Every structure is written in structure tokens, then in C-alpha cells.
């Protein structure tokens, strides 16, 4: 009988654990905390290192529907007209947590006030008992104000606030630190820039176990290969001991809905709706296989496929 040698890699590094949400004993109101990270090996290779925490799926909830594709609107129907009913609908469809994007605050669009936006956050917090990720609208100056008010409005909930970039990290991360929330550090598809933003945040006083990194996950057919490799390189560097990269990774797959193949009929091919669902699911699967700890997803159908993929990859647990 042939004896096949063992190929176990011996990694020296370990990904830190970040916990999301806070329960009553910490002053929050979540039913339970969720932990991400903690890996001691490459994704899903149980023989190489433990993947102690299962990757999570955050359902996207918007407070301004401009960007929402018709197909997803149909999936949620009236539920998506109000962030509260939308968040509940996500929970009943199996989302682990909610990602609330406060697009209504964008000064170039509705320009809602930070206070109004914070009310939305509180309403959603009251409606569901899972942890919450909160983004602004992507408008740098406004987001700084919005995040400050949101942070103060929900002081002990351990929100995950997005996002700190090299060009603008101080106000957002100060807002997060003020009430002990966690923060998403964002870098543009580059290992060194990812490391750089984490160093900046930590120098500024952010605790490492409050940082989740978003290296920008480009959608299928839109540069996915760059993201896939950047993720693998970040994870490898972390396992080899680069402490500034030993943080969980978050990927937003909702950009998949911008791909032509997911949004337009292709001449001579039917099945746009099924194709679009798979477009986001494929993007999510590639993110998981390359190291994602949390996915932000748009369609519950796509999220369902990805959840079953996580089940299968973790051996049916």
C-alpha cells in the first residue's frame, strides 16, 4: 500500500477574532454576539488549521432605493420600502446579521440629516436582535458627521461602522472609538495599502480586535481575479506572521448587480433572473474561497446558495 505523505502547512500566524454586536451584560441589546476570524489556516482546509468561526452573511438594507435592481425589489416586494420590515424579512430568510447602508444621507441626493439617519439605525436595532453593520452614503465629509451621530445614538451596541480609508479615516474611526464600536478598514485592491490603513488605524488608537478589513471585492467579470488574488495574498501574509493583516475580511458582493450579465438581457440567451442570482452567488463563493469572513449580500436567493456552499465547505455543520 502506498503511503501518501502528509502536506500539512505549519503556519505561525493566526487571524484575530472580532466580535460583532453586544448583549445585555455589556450594555447592548443583541440576542447574541457573533464572532468572526480566528483562522489558523487557509479557507476551509480543516486538516491544515481550524476555521473556528463560520463565515457570516449580512443582508443589505438600504434607506434609499435608487440603486436597488427591479429583480431584488420583486424578491422583497413591499418589505424593502421600510428598513425595519426589510431587515426583518432578511432575518426570516436566514441572514446572520444586517448591513444598513444610509444612502439617503448623500448630499447630492436626498441629503437627509445625520439625526434622521441615526433614527433609522435605532429602529432597525429595535426590530431585529442580530448585530448591525452601518455604512453612510460614500460621501466623505457627510459620512464623517453621520457616523458620529450614529455612534452616539447606539453607544453600547458594538456596531461595525464603514468605512475608514487612507484619505479619510480620522473622523470615522474616532466616531467608532468613542463608543467602542468596530470599524471597517478599506483599501483599494492592494496588499500594502491594506496593511497601511490598519497601521494608521492602530496608531490612531483603534484596538486591533475592532478592525475588519475590506480589500474591495470586485464582482465576477469585473476584475474578480484581482480581488481573489489580493485576498489570498493578504491571508497568506497574515498566516506567515504579518500581524497588521491578521484581521477578518469583509466582502461586499452587491456590486455583482452592476455587471452587464446580471442586469441586461443577452441576445439569444434567456434566464436573466437565474443568471443574475448566480452572478452574485459566484462572486460570494469566490470571496469565501479566497478568505472572506463576512459577506454583504443583496439577493436572498443568492445568499441562500452561498449559505449552502458554506455548509458544504464546512462539512455540513
Amino acid at each position, binding site marked *: *500500500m*502506498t*503511503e*501518501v*505523505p502528509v*502536506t500539512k*502547512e505549519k503556519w505561525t500566524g493566526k487571524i484575530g477574532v472580532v466580535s460583532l454586536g453586544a448583549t445585555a451584560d455589556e450594555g447592548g441589546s443583541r440576542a447574541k454576539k457573533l464572532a468572526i476570524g480566528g483562522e489558523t489556516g*487557509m479557507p*476551509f*482546509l*480543516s*486538516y491544515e488549521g481550524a476555521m473556528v468561526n463560520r463565515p457570516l452573511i449580512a443582508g443589505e438594507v438600504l434607506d434609499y432605493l435608487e440603486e436597488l435592481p427591479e429583480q431584488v425589489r420583486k424578491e422583497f416586494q413591499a418589505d424593502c420600502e421600510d428598513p425595519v420590515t426589510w431587515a426583518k424579512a432578511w432575518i426570516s430568510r436566514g441572514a446572520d446579521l444586517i448591513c444598513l447602508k444610509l444612502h439617503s444621507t448623500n448630499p447630492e441626493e436626498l441629503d437627509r440629516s445625520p439625526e434622521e439617519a441615526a433614527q433609522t439605525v435605532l429602529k432597525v436595532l429595535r426590530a431585529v436582535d442580530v448585530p448591525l453593520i452601518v455604512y453612510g452614503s460614500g460621501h466623505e465629509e457627510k459620512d464623517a458627521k453621520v457616523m458620529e451621530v450614529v455612534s452616539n445614538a447606539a453607544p453600547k451596541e458594538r456596531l461595525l461602522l464603514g468605512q475608514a480609508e487612507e484619505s479619510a479615516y480620522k473622523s470615522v474611526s474616532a466616531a467608532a472609538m468613542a463608543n467602542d464600536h468596530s470599524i471597517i478598514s478599506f483599501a483599494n485592491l492592494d496588499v500594502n495599502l491594506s496593511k497601511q490603513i490598519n497601521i494608521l488605524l492602530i496608531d490612531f488608537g483603534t484596538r486591533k480586535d475592532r478592525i475588519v478589513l475590506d480589500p474591495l471585492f470586485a464582482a*465576477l*467579470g*469585473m*476584475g*474578480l*481575479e484581482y480581488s*481573489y*488574488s489580493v485576498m*489570498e*495574498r493578504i491571508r*497568506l501574509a497574515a498566516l506567515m506572521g504579518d500581524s497588521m493583516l491578521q484581521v477578518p475580511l469583509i466582502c461586499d458582493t452587491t456590486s455583482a448587480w452592476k455587471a*452587464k*450579465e446580471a*442586469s*441586461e438581457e*443577452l441576445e439569444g*440567451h*434567456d*434566464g*436573466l*433572473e*437565474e*443568471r443574475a442570482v*448566480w*452572478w452574485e*452567488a*459566484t462572486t460570494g*463563493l*469566490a470571496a469565501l*474561497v*479566497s478568505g472572506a469572513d463576512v459577506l454583504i449580500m443583496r439577493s436572498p436567493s443568492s445568499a441562500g*446558495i452561498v449559505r*449552502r*456552499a458554506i455548509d*458544504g*465547505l*464546512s*462539512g*455540513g455543520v
Partner: protein
Amino acid sequence: MPTAIEIFKHLPKKNCGKCNYPTCLAFAMQLANSKAKLEDCPFVSEEGKAALAASSAPPIRLVRFGSGQRAIEMGDETEIYRHEKKFFHPTAFAVAVSDQLPKDEVRGRVEAIRSVRFERVGQTLGFDSIAVKDDSGDPSKFASAVEEAASACDLPLVLVSSSPERMKVAASKVAARRPLLYGADQRNLAEMASVARTLGCPMALTGAKDLNEMADLAAKAKATGLEDLVLDLGSKSLKDQLEGCSKVRKLSVKKLFRGLGYPILVDAGKGEEAVLKGMLAVMKYGSLVIFDDISEAQALPLFVLRQNIYTDPQVPIQVKPGLYPVNGAKEGAPILFTTNFSLTYFTVLADIEKSKVPAWLLVVDSEGLSVMTAFSAGKLTPEIVVKALESSAAKERSGSEVLVMPGMVSRMSGKLQELSGMRVVVGPKESSGIPKFLKNLS
């Protein structure tokens, strides 16, 4: 490739210089860097040659099946992660056809599989192979389904059967097409191997309960003189598949363990899990995936994932810069410019074509970067656009006064207008807005 020292051991050590290098050691060093050929030394012994050939064989054997233009190459991969260099031989996708279908339905199904075709960024995406399954257990049915499939298309075939007798009858009919014979296990290995050897076909091994058993099976097959082997690890779950394939790839590439150094086949089945298995195979070390069934809507994301994962990380897919007429553009039609990143170019081209409005498309050399990426990297500036206008003699050839720019980089419109002396019009941000935009422009 073995090291210079290992090679040196097998050289005659005459230091005669006939190889054009002063010493045997110098020659060995060149060999190790693939800068010289072993044949250049006239004195290497036969044993030396054999030993060197064995140790310089690729860590994963290159296995071909099919014939002619559409033949499929699998294996010969050298990396664990694509960023280390690249992945070389894209995962091939086969769709299964049962021999229990009536003859005309076999043909119909093969033609349907063959006709799934997508054009994307200048490449044609489709299935690569047909797998004919011996579900009937009837030798003449299997053979005639195989013949029918072969005559219905030019794709390479996989013949799926656990019976050496039925395999022999069917494979003899299409031996010239060099099909992959899938179904050698512990019980039938000797007979199946003899069929494969006689017909000169590659063979896939299956039914091993773990990697030790698989290595055993491979060693036995090899002992019968078969080199072109493919492994079906028989993974039940996505976890099994990922872990099995990862172990085999690392053993082969990193440890140069040759007992499992063959391409991997994933028999995916059907339904959602099959699609996920196919996608996992693309990312993690699968060379051939057989689907019992898969919809067009699932196939396209799968094909595009393969296209993405198998692009060379060092070179974005690019198109040739220059001025191109679209929709029969002539004198006076507007010029639109974009970058030479192929994804960008083909997206924009398709939308101009959709508009049916004649227009010129100026492809600016941005070193293969998309509009926004090039803009932030300083590879798409007003100066660079003007240079592209000049080097393609765009104004003279088009007779146009109007230059349409991508909406995303509207910030450079003023400067561009000044430098080009043309009427610069800011187009839509997304190229999907181009048809409407062009219709209003004219």
C-alpha cells in the same frame, strides 16, 4: 526541474567542452535554468538520460484527450496560488449524455450542449466535452450512443463505464478521437488498463476510498505501462473536494510526490451543488468537471469565473489601440474614446453596436487599465488622449469635429477640449447609456 547538482551527478564529467560549455558543471547549471538541452552533450549514458527525464517531468502530468483543434490539455500546473505565476490549463467542462436516450435524442442533446455559446471580451465561451454514460448496461446501446455523439459534434469525448467489455466495444469505434476512458477501479483495473493501452487512450481512475488507495491504484495502472491518467477523488461534499484537491496539488507541486501527479476529474452530478462543485474546481485545482445537467443561466457565471481565474495575473487582457469604425462609420461620424482594457473596450463596443448609430471608437493605450483605474494611475490624461488622436490620424480619417468622452472622467473635459481643439462632449457614466446618448447626439 532538478537542481544543477542533481543533473551534474548524471553527466560524464569529462569536461571536454563539446556541449559549448567549458565544464560539465557549467553545462549542468545551464540545464537547470532551461538554457541548454541535454542532447548537446554526446556522452550522457542511457541510464543518465532516463534518470534525468524522470526527475525533470512536470509535477503534474500533462494529459491530453480528444483530437484536432478541440483537443483538451489538462494538468502541467506548477503553482498553488495563481498570483505566484499563473494557472496554465483552464478547467474543462463536460456535459453528460445517457445511452438510454433514443438515438435521435442523443444527437439532439449533443447539439444543444454544443450550441451553448457566449461571446465575451473577445473570447467564445462554451462547453468543452461530451461525456457519454453507460447507464443501460447494454454494449450495443452504449457503443451506438458513443458513435452518435461523436458524429454529432467535434468535441472530445469522455466514455463513462465500469465495464471493460462495454468500454472496449464503444471505445474501439471512436479510438481515433482519443476519448478519455472513465471508470477504472480496484476491481476492473487490469482489464480497463488493457483497453486503454491497446487503443492508446488516457484513463480515469475512480472508487478509491482515500488518497493512499488512489496512489495505489495509480501505481498499479502505471505498472501496466499507462502514463496518461486522470484521478477522480470521489469527493462527496464541497469540503472533501476542496481538501482532496488541495492535498494533491501541494503534494505534487511542493513535495514533488509523483504518485498522485495527475489531473483531477470532478464528477459533479446535477443541481445547485454540481454548479458549486464546478466553480470550486475552477478555483481549486480541478482539471475536468462532468455535469449531468446544467442550465445556460448557470453556465455563463461558471465560464466567466474560469475566464477570470485563468487570466495571467501579470498581463491584463488588452486590445490593440487605434481608431475603429463601428456600424459602418464614415466621414463626419462622432469619435468616442475609451481605454484598451479588453473588458472596457468590448463593453463599450457592444453598446455602440446596439445603438446602430455610425461612430468611430478611439482606443487609447492605457496599458490595459479600465477607465477609472487608468485615470487614477495617470494613464488616461488629456495629453495621452491627444497623442492617441494624432497617432491614429483620427481627425483626418473620421472628418469629425466631435469627441465623446467617458462620463466617469468628465473632470478632464476642459483641458481635453483645449488641447484637442475638438468639440468635447461628456458621455454617460455607464456605457449602457450610450445607445440613448448617441441617438440624441445625431
